[in-house]
């Protein structure tokens, strides 16, 4: 059993929901990334999504695009990202790391080399944003052969047939994009999320994480009541962006702790619509 499955099994046994933060590798600079990863774990994160910077992050909003640009200014490459993960692994053997990025850097390296190097570094799952299931069966096999999970996105507009297709290919967890639009957008409709998760669960047997648009503890808590995992991205990146470098670790830790506390609270009534 790989680290992602182990993590969800342990969480279920403790009746807890997973907190999955997203940061971009190399943002604000490559030297801080590994420390940030440890800091996320200390603050109560269960899985880390590590963004691989790309020059044209079409599915992301301006916040994550800017983080990608900051990382690319430091010439962060996939090899650099693997090094960061390996460094993190040397002190942390249990927290799953999922790489999230776009197809082109992966293709430039080559699927097989990527899978081999990622596995060696200690990567547990890969989400390639612009590889929909139709275009990547070979890629999913390649990841599987190297004991890594292919993580897929599902959206409010995904039709049943595709949900079933993704359910066949996806491993680890699926990532439900909780609103139409790009990362970092503003409004969430919890009733819709609830209805959609019920629909997804009829086909998807692995855990479902929800992300896009979760910006505060109350929303995180409300989403945690419905989903198996809560993904926080843009809000953390904003904290990194707006904080002087020497205080980034503290501020991110405090922020992520607040999400952890909120998710753990048992609050069936939410004032969100």
């Amino acid at each position, binding site marked *: 059993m790989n680290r992602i499955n182990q993590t969800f099994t342990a969480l279920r046994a403790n009746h807890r929901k997973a907190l999955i933060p997203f940061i971009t590798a190399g943002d604000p600079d490559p030297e801080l990334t590994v420390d940030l990863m440890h800091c996320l774990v200390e603050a109560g994160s269960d899985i880390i999504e590590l963004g691989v910077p790309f020059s044209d992050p079409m599915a992301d909003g301006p916040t994550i*695009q800017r983080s990608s640009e900051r990382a690319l200014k430091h010439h962060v490459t996939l090899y650099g990202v693997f090094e960061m993960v390996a460094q993190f692994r040397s002190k942390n053997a249990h927290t799953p790391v999922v790489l999230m990025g776009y197809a082109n850097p992966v293709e430039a390296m080559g699927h097989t080399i990527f899978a081999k190097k990622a596995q060696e570094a200690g990567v547990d799952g890969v989400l390639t944003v612009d590889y929909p299931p139709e275009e990547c069966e070979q890629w999913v096999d390649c990841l599987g052969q190297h004991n890594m999970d292919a993580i897929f996105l599902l959206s409010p*507009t995904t039709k049943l047939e595709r949900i079933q297709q993704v359910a066949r290919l996806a491993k680890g967890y699926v990532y439900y994009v909780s609103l139409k639009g790009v990362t970092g957008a503003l409004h969430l409709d919890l009733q819709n999320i609830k209805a959609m998760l019920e629909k997804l669960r009829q086909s998807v047997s692995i855990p479902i994480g929800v992300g896009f648009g979760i910006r505060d503890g109350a929303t995180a808590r409300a989403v945690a009541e419905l989903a198996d995992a809560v993904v926080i991205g843009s809000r953390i990146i904003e904290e990194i962006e707006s904080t002087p470098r020497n205080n980034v670790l503290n501020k991110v830790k405090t922020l992520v702790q607040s999400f952890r506390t909120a998710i753990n609270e048992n609050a069936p009534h939410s004032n969100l619509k």
Partner: protein
Amino acid sequence: MNVYDLPDKTGHFGPYGGVFVAETLISALDVLREQYEYYQNDAAFQKEFACELKHYVGRPSPIYHAKRWSEHLGGAQILLKREDLNHTGAHKINNTIGQALLARRMGKTRVIAETGAGQHGVASATVAARYGMQCVVYMGAEDVRRQATNVYRMKLLGAEVVPVESGSRTLKDALNEAMRDWVTHVEDTFYIIGTVAGPHPYPMMVRDFQTIIGKEAKIQMLEEYGRQPDALIACVGGGSNAIGLFYPYIDDDNVKMIGVEAAGKGLDTHQHAATLTTGRPGVLHGNRTYLIQDDNGQIIETHSISAGLDYPGVGPEHAWLKDIHRAEYVGITDDEALEAFHALCRFEGIMPALESSHALAYAAKYAPTLAKDKLLLVNLSGRGDKDMATVAQMSGITF
């Protein structure tokens, strides 16, 4: 004889094309594909499209024999397909009319577009005004600065122009931003892509709307010259004017097809946009195609004197035509294009767009190597009025 019938059902031209987008866009693309597949074969839709092209755009565009220039060059005869005579001054309008008609039938009230130099933005703003739709054009902040006249033109036509500050602040970033707008406002919004790139069905749909160029040419050539040309020459940025001319000729093996890319300051520099000549296959903007990228798969900023060719990708169908050796792709530098620009002004009294000047420059190199009875059909994809400031600047002239 083989009949060319690509793309396949899933939008692939060999290994190229496809649908490489995040899940959030899939359903919008599915709907678009279904709707287009329906209207593609709908007689009423095709009739309205043809009628708009005739009465609003002014088609068919003539084929003009550049006799004096051909004589000066001393080889093959150069014929020009006059897309520069279209309403708004370029081939772009063929496609924006097609997509706007589709948008109307799909009940969309708002259209968005990306633009580099502003030509596709102007063509989109034009049809939005024509059909009473709201129009938002995304344009790199750098391009907004460089193309102030076109920005004003779009505003006069009632469009909102949004400067894009992210990335390299050029066309590719405008495309990213337009995609983001679309995924957020998909209920009421239609995204008019300006070239034969992007996720399926765009490369096929834009091609289909542009094939009017080649279809007309086939008829006109027979009528006026009694035969088809020996070669077709067209500039390639994303490649919509080129594929529009090439496509009806793909099965005619005797007609050579030559795509001309922007070699900028030279193919041995990093300042060019010659994607097919120097790039490698990869995935960008929803399709697999040749890309100008670094060793790590990051997209590199391109350069061309002509903003319309300044793009790090290329339509997937061109990638396929290159690989199967059906079309040949060559590079023309800024200086060579500029020389052809001046030549056409002086010999024929026609001011070509700098994009089209690349195709003309290659024709000027190629024609003298051929006998005088050979016919080269060059797609004069746009007129050069928009480029006067650039040309003046290159010549050291200020107004």
